[in-house]
């Protein structure tokens, strides 16, 4: 306790600034940490001893039909209702505008009646085309990885374990292509569940749905193998099944979310940066933590070896990361580099001075990892109910000061240049698919989404510079209502400085992918596999314990997993050791 308090006292000196953190190049190099939302959810499942049951399996021999998988918490039950169907191969696409999927899901709040299941059978397979009720918390769909799916079924049916290399190269049996919550298509609003303990952290019901989908996919292949192979069939080896995650294809929808929820993003980033700062402020390493870190450097090397992507840019970054992690390991072999006062700050500083953003952010995750006892509580601070409010009582001179202090990055951009306003964001009438258009090429500039933060601040600043300080902001907004949204945003930034992406989102060189990776890392996703600058595939829950492993002592040790093996070293300072 004394150690903890000392750390808390002085960590502020070690906080990275918003100017450093909220830049696209660093955001686009993010990795999950132990504060990521999947980690938080798994820790809660273990702590509260959640139970899991398959309560319905009404499918044919090909696996088509309906199943229900339930998570039973101390206070209530959540049920994943899964519908599976055969679809034409040429209609299997990751895009929002797809019309059919191998599997569709609703996460039901409670235990569904037959009437509920019948209602959802007529709606869930339609996805956006259906309508949902406040009893439904999440809507999702997934497509099979055909290669892995068939390989696993045929292997298990013939009594052998599947090709681990193939599983490693893909990472999942099914890939979700959308997971909707928070009132989408009539589903329950977040406010309905926000005060439940298990829903307090961000995206917990969405990630619970994904966790149950993962279980469903593994259960499905084992059942189908049994059906096909009879007595000869075997179940998946535990280490292999644990390595199977759920894929996800993420496109542009996540980018507007990040920009429209600045208070929430601030809380996420502050929690992570506080965790890092607390670790960097430790003068003498906590017992065992350095040793765990050194072992994790070895494991992460293997994890990176298994992270293979076709994208040239990411491939080059992974290759460099491999070399840098190797170089860091060699640097750490010199004990004088690490066994000294403020060892974690020394390691961080060395990496920041010498290596790529990709390596810097991976090391941030690695040095936070052995410090569960001093950082895990921060997970409770990552939500918010706060909605940015227009504050009419701020003075115009205060507003000018905030713009000058926090938006220098925006006011110094030359927006008269074509490349500074090359892109625009819009919603297509095709299922409201968000798109990233190019001016002069794509139609729809007039219907641009209000995400041009830098440009709007720049325009406001020009007017502010010509306006006397003696009028109130309320009067200013009456005269210039077109700036109301951006003033509100600036006022929010004044109180929540980590809320704003400090780059021009319209720039020709802007890659939406950086925003996606930033958000996905907070979710806990890994194995980022960009398919263009607009979308990426990822893996979720790879290495996480399955429902029957939640009570095992190593339930919280699954960062940077490696194929077919549990973590090669025991973790430290985390909740699972206490549970064990």
């Amino acid at each position, binding site marked *: 306790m004394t150690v903890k308090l000392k750390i808390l006292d002085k960590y502020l000196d070690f906080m990275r600034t918003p100017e450093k953190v909220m830049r696209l190049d660093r955001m686009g190099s993010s990795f999950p940490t132990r504060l990521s939302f999947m980690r938080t959810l798994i820790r809660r499942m273990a702590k509260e001893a959640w139970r899991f049951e398959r309560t319905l399996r009404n499918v044919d021999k090909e696996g088509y039909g309906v199943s229900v998988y339930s998570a039973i918490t101390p206070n209530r039950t959540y049920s994943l209702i899964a519908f599976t169907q055969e679809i034409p191969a040429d209609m299997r696409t990751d895009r929002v505008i797809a019309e059919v999927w191998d599997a569709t899901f609703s996460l039901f709040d409670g235990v569904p009646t037959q009437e509920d299941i019948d209602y959802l059978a007529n709606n869930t397979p339609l996805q956006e085309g259906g309508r949902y009720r406040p009893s439904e918390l999440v809507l999702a769909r997934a497509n099979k990885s055909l290669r892995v799916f068939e390989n696993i079924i045929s292997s298990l049916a013939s009594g052998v374990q599947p090709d681990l290399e193939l599983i490693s190269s893909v990472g999942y049996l099914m890939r979700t292509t959308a997971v909707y919550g928070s009132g989408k298509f009539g589903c329950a609003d977040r406010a309905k569940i926000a005060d439940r303990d298990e829903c307090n952290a961000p995206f917990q019901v969405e990630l619970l749905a994904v966790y149950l989908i993962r279980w469903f996919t593994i259960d499905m292949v084992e059942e189908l193998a049994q059906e096909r192979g009879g007595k000869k069939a075997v179940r998946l080896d535990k280490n292999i099944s644990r390595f199977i995650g759920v894929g996800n294809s993420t496109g542009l929808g996540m980018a507007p979310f990040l920009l429209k929820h600045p208070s929430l993003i601030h809380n996420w980033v502050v929690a992570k940066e506080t965790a890092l700062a607390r670790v960097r402020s430790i003068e003498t390493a906590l017992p065992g933590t350095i040793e765990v870190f050194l072992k994790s450097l070895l494991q992460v090397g293997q994890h990176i070896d298994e992270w293979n992507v076709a994208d040239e840019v990411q491939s080059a970054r992974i290759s460099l990361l491999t070399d840098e992690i190797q170089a860091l390991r060699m640097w750490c072999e010199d004990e004088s580099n690490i066994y000294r006062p403020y060892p974690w700050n020394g390691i961080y500083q060395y990496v920041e001075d010498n290596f790529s953003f990709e390596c810097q952010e991976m090391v941030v995750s690695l040095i936070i990892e052995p410090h569960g006892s001093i950082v895990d509580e921060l997970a409770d601070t990552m939500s918010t109910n706060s909605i940015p409010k227009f504050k009419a009582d701020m003075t115009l001179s205060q507003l000018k000061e905030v713009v000058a202090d926090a938006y220098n990055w925006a006011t110094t951009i030359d927006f008269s240049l074509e490349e500074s306003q090359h892109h625009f964001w819009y919603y*297509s009438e095709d299922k409201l698919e968000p798109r990233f258009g190019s001016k002069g090429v794509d139609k729809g500039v007039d219907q641009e989404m209000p995400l041009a933060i830098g440009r709007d601040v720049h325009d406001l600043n020009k007017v502010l510079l010509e306006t006397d300080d003696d009028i109130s902001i309320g009067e200013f907004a009456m005269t210039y209502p077109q*700036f109301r*949204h951006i003033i509100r945003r600036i006022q929010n930034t004044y109180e929540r400085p980590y809320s704003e992406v400090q780059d021009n989102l319209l720039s020709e060189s802007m890659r939406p992918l950086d925003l996606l990776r930033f958000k996905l890392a907070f979710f806990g996703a890994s194995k980022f596999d960009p398919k263009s600058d607009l979308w990426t595939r990822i893996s979720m829950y790879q290495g996480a314990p399955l429902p029957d492993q939640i009570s095992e002592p190593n339930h919280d040790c699954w960062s940077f997993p490696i194929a077919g093996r549990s973590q090669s070293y025991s973790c430290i300072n985390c909740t699972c050791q206490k549970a064990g």
Partner: protein
Amino acid sequence: MSKSRLTISLNEVLFYFTRAGFGVNAPIGVSEDFARSNIWVAQNGFDPSECSLKALDNLDSRKSSLSIQFEKNENGSHLFCKEGNLLSALEASVSCVDWLEFNGLNGKLMVTNVDCPLLVVSALGANQCTGIKVSWLDNSNNHYQVNLCDETKWEIISSSEAPVEKSNNADIEISALNASEKISIKNGKIRTFNVTDEKLKTLNNGVKVGDKWPQIYEYFSRCLVKSSAESRASGAGAGLVDTD
């Protein structure tokens, strides 16, 4: 989604009404506040499309204006449309909230010729402005008084059975809620709302929207860009058939 008699979520109210406001050329910041006001309307059991369609129609047909002016005199303060037009409730509502936040409630605030008074009330409610009385006489000669008592309770007193969400075109008076003037309409019908209970009901049952909803959706649709083969081909994930 464009059909009437739907049940929608509060998040959908936020999404569609923000863009419906933008669809009639209201600035995005004003549209965001308009949507928040509609959430308050919906949370209290009213159909937000019934309440807001007139305000959107008026802006779209230029019968109302967002142009607003402020003046102070010995009787209090006054917000009105510069051109003498109908004042859009979208602008009147945000300006009232701003005015109260900046000035507090010393004396009365008059807001002249507002097209949809309930939207002004809902903006005050959504911003937790309490201890306030809002009253008006509309163009059908219906007299309404809304008391925003505290954060948990508000009430409507009306001179007739006419639904408050259909009340249009009125001069609104906003003043402090004094116990002695709590009910100033003779033989008025009182309806009391418990904010927490009403919100809970809405969260458990959703927001029912009626026959005005398709027109709200129509305004929302103006924010959508028509799709073409080219734009479809440039979307995220384009050209890929799953083969992994």
